[in-house]
């Protein structure tokens, strides 16, 4: 997940960003020309703002993934007997010699200007020789008999025309900079804007990174910026949206594209008809005033909320808004009525989701507030709480000189005010105050509180302070005005804001409260212009769990702001993590002083053994498979950690029988993947793995299972090396549940099915490791996590003895189901009474019943985030439907005459909070990662790590060494196509697969040049039109898996010919492959692999790989089922196995 930021603008026009993961806010980088911002509107990856010159600016946050756009054009030629292939032979009916792919537009290579000064060409035009995964004939030419026909890479007898593709990449270079948005001279307002709002990023069916951007000019005209998307952050042009002669002063766009605006007269308008095909809506509708005399000043639109402020600062909440439904239903866009809320603000901003969604600036005290207790069921929230804002002062020294000079003025005015206060015990802390002066403030306040000095005196002095602010503010306003002779509109607003400043009533602000502020926050009082806020934007600040955000805490007492990390989320609800850590630290201290030096003493209590007993159900294999009632007993000696026994007592045909499982025989204990069977766990032993009949035990509840698993693992911790850092040459794997299982090799060789697999904390989809002890993992939400040499977490909870270096981890999964309908004459599409060939709700195959309401969370540790919504991505119509003749045929977007059924996908996100020995790596999301296979030559030499970003970029991590597992930063390795998989094998030979299945080889990767030289396309592709999507490169061997689950081996790879000659089919039903040292190959299978009958996710190892037979001969079962991913790239087998069947 990317960083979530709340943006703040102060009265000097500086913009600050407050990250949800940080304690402090920081100033956003400023442009060198001293641009000041009046207001901003932020989204996740950037923000739009109005500068002091009334122009619109866009600021894109830095990221490791560049914004890179490919321009393409085609060169076309026709053959004639006398001139061969040349463009001169093109017939008049043909396309032009340079055209786009369809041929309807004439485009020479010079017809591609850079869109703005903020773009640069990456290089010159070049010919793309890749044709559907194959390399074309010389010069990249593709041949056909005539123009809109099937092309082939080689000339054929009837090839009369040919074409080739030219490519050129351009790159957006204005990152971390305010880029001015161009405007056309024809705009009657001269491009002077007073308001801008960004949203619409949840609108379905739009290009990636689409934003709906609305702006208001000084004359009250409304414009939208068209075509803003990931590849075009600036958009292409402004388009006027008619407002029927009413002048707008404020506008707000919600995440779903819903637009509300306020007119000059204080009337509120809502834009109706916004939908995925008509993102800017069709008409305005007026919302009646809440009361006859209430005139609105500002609106803020969230997902399912609209908040507004009237000119008197009263807060209004609009009831009945449903952003997701607003696309179909006007009533959901309009809502039902206004509700007056407590408090008064002069500015309001909402987050894109419905948790903790409202921020505001107090009308009287100008302090930042947030609304506590907001959640999906109570969108209105409970109370206004002060926001704990603190600046990262370490960064402050870097502030540029323009700020300094401005600040000097301000401090001087402060100085004056404090002079006027001399004699009274209150001193105004200023930005430059050092620790000493803070202490002074504190000291001087204490006696004040105790003796309660003359109050009127103080409030008077406070008014004076405020007056000075007001003056400085006013003067600033005037200076803005002088710069912009036309800015009548903005002046109007500003003066209105000023009015609110003037109406500040000093008697309402309680002195003792202010002094508390000084006391707890030290840096923020209204007297400090740097923190005198005028504008917030929370639209780029998706807050999932307000309790985890340090600056959103509502607890009283001075521990407010001292937030630090907590292991267990439930604890944060009850006790501040700070106090908890203090207590825990004191307990550690107690145990250290009292026990440490006396450990040799005899223990007062003998601990011999420990018995646990409970009744369970046990799955008996055999003629009649069934669950049987049993009693399970765990006996474990605490002295000798290795011995322990599980006894299953059961009574077949009335006779009591015991079955015992010795601890030393257990190879793995894990939960099964089925979310509806949370209380079932599996015990694997070598024997049962061979038979594929692991012990299945079901306890009475999920928490019981948790306890049993935790107990079993704890009891076995010594044998299984759980209480130690994962060994370097371990095999890492993940299961379908997302659990992490590690095999740590022993000194001696073991048969594959005898290997021990034990669980570590964390939840991932992929995990990659290497011999150098660096392990990276990728979550379901594509977040990257790096192993930090700790252990424990997950099942072991937070017991200090079982965990080390465990931190909080989150992951998100998307759960989906299909709604199916069938067409009947007269009635039309319905889900009533057709359940003959499909369930009303089903999975994508239509075979399994999957009712939306009955879908369960993966486990009780998960929680839903958000509600069910229709998935509009892909080939679907307005309401998300896809049509087909019947459920077995492919679905398409538009209903045809022969279509009889339709379906649509519903999705819902759920979130997990867990703990594990993992550190989060930055905000760049990746979908695949590979770590160099070779052992590093020295401890300081870099380790090569490549990854595929979630949008298909290939990335290379710099600065990774065995001392810095996380590395420093990503660099982009340019590719012509988005990639799906990369792998770095022996001698740093890098291979990758693009989205169309074409395979690339990149030579020249070394520790000094970790990104290599250039991509070489590897041909031929596998036969039968298979699309490869996963690759793994061992010491020499290269193996790949295609989208249909076939496994391929690359033949005849030699040092002189590293690309090999062809792909060789090995077997099918393969989900994942990992190739490691000695070219050892392991796979994770799909169900019923080979001749075996089993579920999905069995791990196999390739047998019989020799120099003569590099493809190997057979498979040996390792563990399963229920696995998802395995990485053997850190594993070096201890000695060569003997030939076995």
């Amino acid at each position, binding site marked *: 997940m990317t960083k979530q930021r709340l943006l703040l603008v102060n009265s000097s026009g500086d913009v600050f960003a407050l990250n949800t993961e940080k304690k402090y806010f920081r100033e956003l980088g400023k442009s060198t020309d001293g641009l000041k911002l009046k207001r901003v509107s932020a989204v996740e990856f950037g923000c739009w703002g109005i500068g002091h010159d009334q122009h619109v600016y866009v600021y894109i946050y830095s990221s490791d993934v560049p914004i890179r756009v490919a321009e393409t054009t085609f060169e076309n030629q026709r053959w004639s007997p006398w001139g061969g292939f040349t463009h001169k032979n093109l017939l008049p009916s043909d396309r032009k010699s340079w055209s786009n792919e369809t041929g309807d537009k004439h485009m020479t290579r010079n017809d591609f200007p850079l869109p703005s000064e903020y773009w640069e060409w990456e290089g010159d035009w070049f010919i793309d020789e890749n044709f559907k995964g194959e390399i074309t004939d010389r010069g990249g030419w593709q041949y056909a008999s005539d123009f809109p026909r099937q092309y082939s890479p080689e000339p054929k007898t009837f090839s009369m025309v040919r074409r080739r593709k030219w490519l050129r990449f351009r790159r957006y270079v204005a990152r971390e900079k305010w880029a001015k948005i161009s405007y056309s001279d024809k705009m009657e307002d001269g491009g002077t804007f007073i308001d801008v709002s960004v949203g619409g990023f949840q609108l379905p069916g739009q290009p990636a990174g689409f934003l709906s951007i609305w702006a208001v000019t000084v004359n009250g005209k409304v414009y939208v910026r068209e075509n803003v998307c990931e590849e075009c952050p600036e958009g292409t042009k402004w388009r006027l949206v008619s407002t029927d002669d009413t002048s707008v002063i404020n506008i707000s766009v919600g995440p779903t594209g819903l637009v509300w605006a306020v007119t000059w007269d204080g009337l509120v308008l809502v834009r109706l008809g916004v939908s995925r095909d008509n993102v800017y809506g069709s008409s305005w509708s007026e919302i009646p005033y809440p009361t006859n005399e209430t005139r609105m000043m500002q609106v803020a639109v969230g997902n399912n909320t609209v908040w507004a402020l009237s000119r008197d600062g009263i807060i209004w909440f609009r009831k009945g808004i449903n952003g997701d439904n607003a696309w179909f239903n006007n009533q959901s866009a309009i809502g039902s009525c206004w509700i007056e809320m407590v408090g008064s603000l002069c500015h309001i901003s909402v987050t894109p989701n419905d948790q903790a969604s409202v921020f505001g600036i107090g009308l009287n005290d100008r302090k930042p507030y947030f609304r506590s207790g907001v959640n999906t069921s109570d969108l209105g929230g409970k109370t206004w709480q002060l926001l704990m804002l603190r600046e990262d002062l370490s960064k402050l020294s870097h502030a540029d000189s323009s700020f300094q000079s401005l600040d000097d003025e301000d401090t001087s005015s402060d100085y004056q005010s404090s002079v006027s206060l001399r004699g009274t015990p209150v001193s105004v802390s200023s930005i430059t105050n050092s620790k000493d002066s803070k202490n002074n403030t504190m000291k001087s306040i204490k006696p004040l509180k105790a003796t309660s000095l003359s109050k009127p005196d103080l409030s008077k002095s406070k008014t004076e302070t405020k007056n000075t602010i007001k003056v400085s503010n006013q003067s600033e306003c005037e200076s803005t005005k002088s710069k912009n002779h036309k800015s009548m509109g903005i002046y109007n607003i500003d003066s209105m804001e000023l009015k609110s400043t003037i109406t500040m009533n000093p008697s309402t602000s309680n002195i003792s409260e202010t002094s508390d502020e000084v006391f707890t926050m030290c840096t923020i009082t209204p007297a400090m212009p740097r923190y005198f806020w005028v504008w917030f934007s929370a639209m780029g600040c998706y807050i999932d769990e307000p309790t985890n955000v340090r600056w959103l805490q509502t607890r009283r007492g001075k521990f407010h702001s001292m937030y630090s990390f907590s292991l267990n989320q439930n604890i944060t609800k009850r*006790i501040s993590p700070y106090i908890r850590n203090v207590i825990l630290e*004191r307990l550690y201290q107690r145990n250290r002083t009292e026990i440490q030096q006396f450990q040799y003493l005899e223990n007062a209590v003998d601990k011999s053994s420990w018995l646990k007993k409970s009744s369970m159900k046990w799955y008996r294999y055999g003629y009649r498979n069934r669950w049987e009632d049993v009693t399970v007993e765990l006996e474990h000696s605490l002295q000798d950690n290795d011995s322990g026994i599980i006894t299953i007592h059961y009574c077949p045909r009335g006779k009591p029988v015991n079955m015992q499982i010795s601890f030393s025989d257990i190879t793995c204990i894990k939960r099964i993947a089925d979310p509806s069977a949370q209380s079932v766990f599996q015990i694997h032993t070598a024997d049962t793995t061979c038979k594929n009949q692991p012990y299945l035990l079901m306890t009475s509840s999920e928490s019981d299972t948790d306890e049993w698993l935790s107990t079993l693992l704890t009891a076995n911790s010594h044998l299984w090396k759980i209480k130690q850092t994962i060994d370097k040459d371990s095999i890492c794997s993940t299961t379908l549940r997302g659990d992490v299982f590690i095999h740590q090799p022993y000194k001696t060789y073991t048969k594959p099915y005898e290997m021990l697999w034990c669980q570590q904390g964390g939840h991932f989809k992929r995990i990659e490791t290497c011999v150098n002890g660096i392990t990276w993992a990728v979550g379901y939400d594509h977040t990257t996590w790096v192993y930090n040499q700790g252990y424990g977490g997950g099942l072991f909870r937070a*017991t200090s003895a079982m965990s080390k270096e465990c931190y909080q981890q989150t992951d998100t999964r998307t759960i989906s189901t299909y709604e199916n309908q069938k067409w009947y004459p007269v009635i039309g599409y319905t889900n009533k009474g057709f359940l003959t060939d499909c369930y009303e709700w089903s999975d994508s195959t239509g075979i399994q019943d999957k009712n939306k309401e009955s879908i369960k969370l993966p486990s009780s540790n998960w929680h839903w985030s958000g509600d069910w919504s229709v998935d509009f991505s892909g080939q679907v119509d307005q309401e998300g439907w896809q049509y087909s003749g019947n459920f077995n045929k492919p679905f398409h977007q538009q209903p045809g005459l022969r279509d009889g059924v339709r379906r649509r996908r519903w999705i819902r996100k759920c979130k997990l909070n867990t703990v594990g020995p993992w550190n989060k790596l930055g905000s760049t999301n990746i979908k695949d990662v590979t770590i160099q296979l070779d052992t590093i030559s020295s401890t300081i030499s870099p380790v090569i790590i490549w990854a595929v970003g979630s949008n298909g970029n290939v990335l290379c991590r710099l600065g990774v060494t065995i001392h810095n597992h996380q590395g420093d930063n990503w660099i982009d390795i340019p590719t012509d196509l988005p990639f799906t998989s990369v792998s770095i094998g022996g001698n740093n030979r890098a291979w990758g697969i693009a989205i169309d299945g074409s395979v690339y080889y990149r030579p020249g990767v070394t520790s000094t040049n970790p990104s290599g030289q250039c991509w070489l396309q590897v041909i031929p592709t596998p036969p039968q039109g298979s699309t490869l999507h996963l690759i793994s490169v061992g010491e020499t061997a290269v193996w790949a898996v295609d989208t249909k689950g076939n496994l391929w081996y690359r033949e005849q790879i030699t040092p002189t010919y590293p690309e090999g000659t062809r792909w060789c089919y090995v077997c099918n039903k393969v989900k994942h492959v990992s190739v490691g040292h000695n070219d050892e190959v392991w796979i994770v299978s799909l169900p019923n692999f080979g001749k075996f009958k089993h579920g999905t996710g069995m791990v196999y190892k390739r047998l019989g790989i020799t120099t003569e037979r590099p493809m190997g001969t057979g498979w040996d079962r390792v563990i399963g089922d229920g696995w998802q991913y395995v990485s053997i790239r850190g594993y070096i087998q201890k000695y060569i196995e003997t030939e076995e069947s």
Partner: protein
Amino acid sequence: MAEDREVLREIWEGRIPVCFSLAEEEIYTGEPPDLYYLLVPRQIYFPLVTDKVQRHFIASVDPDKHGEMWLEYEGQPLKWHYPVGVLFDLFANSNSLPWNITVHFQAFPEEELLHCPAKEAIESHFMSVVKEADGLKHRGQLVNNMQKKDHKQLWTGLQNDKFEQFWSVNKKLMESSGDDSFKYIPYRIYQNDRPYIQKLFKPVSDDGEVQTLRDLLKTFDNDELCFNPDISSEKILLIQGIQPPLETPILWLSEHFSYPDNFLHICIVDKMKNES
């Protein structure tokens, strides 16, 4: 519910090194017997672990005169029915480690100590305190609804110093979610040379505020309690051997810092002289 196992575990793991010595006047054999060292869990009661001590010293006392064994520290007879940690916090401090306890077999201080005839007496005492605590927390419903074997497991878990065994039952008693939230906090405040004090105290005030340790202390007058959190005094407050921040929510403390008898034993003691 007590969920923070890390804290629970650390508390459970608390041990006090004790050096037992026989009272000089009771040495019968002439040669003083060797000192006897033990690492005693803070949560436990002395009679559960002093069998070995008794066996060690019994040979050195006059067989005719010896009666029930009792313990004394610096002239202070130690009540066996207080958990070891409470006794240590009240009378000793970490500067006096190991804790030198004098073993007596004569002159049982009848007016100060209860007799401890057998382990069953400790068990019944323990269970009665647990019941009293649950009476305060849940009007006694939970402990009464428990099965006999759960009571047994609670006791054996404590007796054998088995964290998992003890807490798998005790967590039910610490249930405080929903309808089962604590009605009152079971606590006792000990001060030197005064009887312990306790009052009814709700974890959440009537106006919905979460009560903290400081709020609890405020319910006492100055003459009841020789400890005022707002004025720095010569006294300190110890629970389970540490000074918890006064802002700690009392409910959390009760869930995590209670001794096995489910009571929060709060000790007000003099600041250590040789501490800063």
